[in-house]
């Protein structure tokens, strides 16, 4: 698991840190940070900074969507028309 401090290094005064009781892929971690949420990692568990009750609800909603999105993506065919060897061959 990537050390999240590498992505967002500022220390933030904790008010309410909410446990995330499931593993998060790097893509979901960065997506949450991209959307303005602060994350921190404690051992294998993540916590999100939610300063108010409403923000806990908002965080849980977006997290649920992002986790569902990951499941949805697995049902979409991959973009195989773009192949690495096309370009390696060209560069030679």
């Amino acid at each position, binding site marked *: 698991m*990537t050390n999240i401090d*590498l*992505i967002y290094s500022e220390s933030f005064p904790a008010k309410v840190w909410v446990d995330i009781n499931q593993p998060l892929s*790097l*893509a979901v971690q*960065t*997506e949450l940070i*991209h959307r303005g949420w602060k994350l921190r990692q404690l051992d294998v568990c993540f916590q999100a900074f939610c300063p108010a009750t409403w923000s806990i609800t908002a965080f849980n*909603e*977006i997290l649920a*969507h*992002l986790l569902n*999105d990951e499941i*949805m*993506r697995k*049902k*979409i*065919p*991959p*973009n*195989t*028309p*773009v192949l*690495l060897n096309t*370009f*390696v061959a*060209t*560069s*030679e």
Partner: protein
Amino acid sequence: MSANYARGELLPFSFHRMDNNSVVAVSATGDYAFLTQQELATLVENPEKLELKKRAELQSKYFLKGASSFGSEELIRSRIAARKETVLAGQSLHIIVPTLQCEHSCQYCQVSRRLEDVGHTMTPTQIDAACVTIFQSPSSALTIEFQGGDPLLRFDLIQRAINLIQTINLVHKRRIRFVITSTLHQLTTEMCEYLRDNQVYLSTSLDGPAALHNKNRPLPTRDSHARTLSGIELARRIIGPHAVAALMTTTKASLAHPEAIVDEYVKNGFSEIFMRPLSLYGFAKRNIKHLGYTLPEFTNFYQKALQRVLEWNAKGTELREGTAALILNKLLSPFDAGYVDLQSPTGSGLAVLVYNYDGYVYPSDEARMLAETGDCSLRLGTIGDSLAELMTSPVMKQLVVTSISTQAAGCKTCAFNSYCGPDPVGAQAEFGEMSTTALLTEHCKRHKWLFEYFFHKLRTADDDFLDIAYRWAHPSGGSDA
């Protein structure tokens, strides 16, 4: 072609969540559609249940294959190939760095050396060898750009290169464009007459009003802004009204002046402005605490500046913003404008080559800047090596392998991978490793924000903004960036 792809009606696509109830979906061809959560689920699970109009839209944008659409796969390949032409058609931008010498002592500049420093200049033999390599590129259009330092300090070497390239081109008959990037402080009437006669364009830096420009680009005489404006005026008078393009670099000091910076460009008769963030290279990286800013600080500045640009357009003053134009080109045009930073595989080396004063060839301007800080790992070879040798170097292979957006970790499922690509040179500068997961890089964070921002703008756009967006998206709109 995978079995899934051939069997099902669903074609490859990715999506990015806009909010809790909607996403923007992007097909392999780069066409996009805004979908509700329900529409996304139906598209993936039961596309035949989509309403006919939505289904037709998604079929026309290559999200779905119709029962009788036998040519869809070939059309997708063709569309992808058209987008990749900028990196498949050969190196079209060749940057020659005749000297590192420069009058300025900018805090964020990675490369320049003072006038009295010696040993930072190309030899005539190296100039000649670089010109020969340039014509080994298969590209039918070649841009030769002179950078520095301030290349006008060695105008003799510029003239040597231009004269030789034009002589060689009598046989090759390529479309050639020359650009000199300079402070313009050294520009003379005689130089302008030569540049006019040889159709050479100038690119300069204008960071904003005098106080800001002079702070960013210090001279002992504190008149950097005035001298650049004098150079612009001289060039326009002798070469022509469109002789000079200008770029600005955003420093910490710039953040408080977005409107004044835009107004300065209008005041000085420019029809294009390119709002660039500071690069994390070289001296700029070492001074990051003093000069740097966060992505939110830059995006806040950028939005205000873009708003000012749009206000000027609404008043009838045509002004094109370069970053917006590059992103809109990606989103709205099937033909890529060729911006090096947003290519997959990377444009570094495939679209650009840099012939440096130190006798080496680098894959991009940023790579040669990195070398100035001691990291020479991105050298492709030495000036005089054939293009084939440069392209088969281990570094070049690594650049390609680490920059395929549909295969790189973190990019594979990104909705914007049709428009973007990992930046291995930037990753090397930021983390010391070309294959760093793209998601962690500053390049990814900034461009993801830009794609998302412009998708939001397009979703809520009025006719006026759409008119501008499609106009700017056209590659021939021309950016010297």
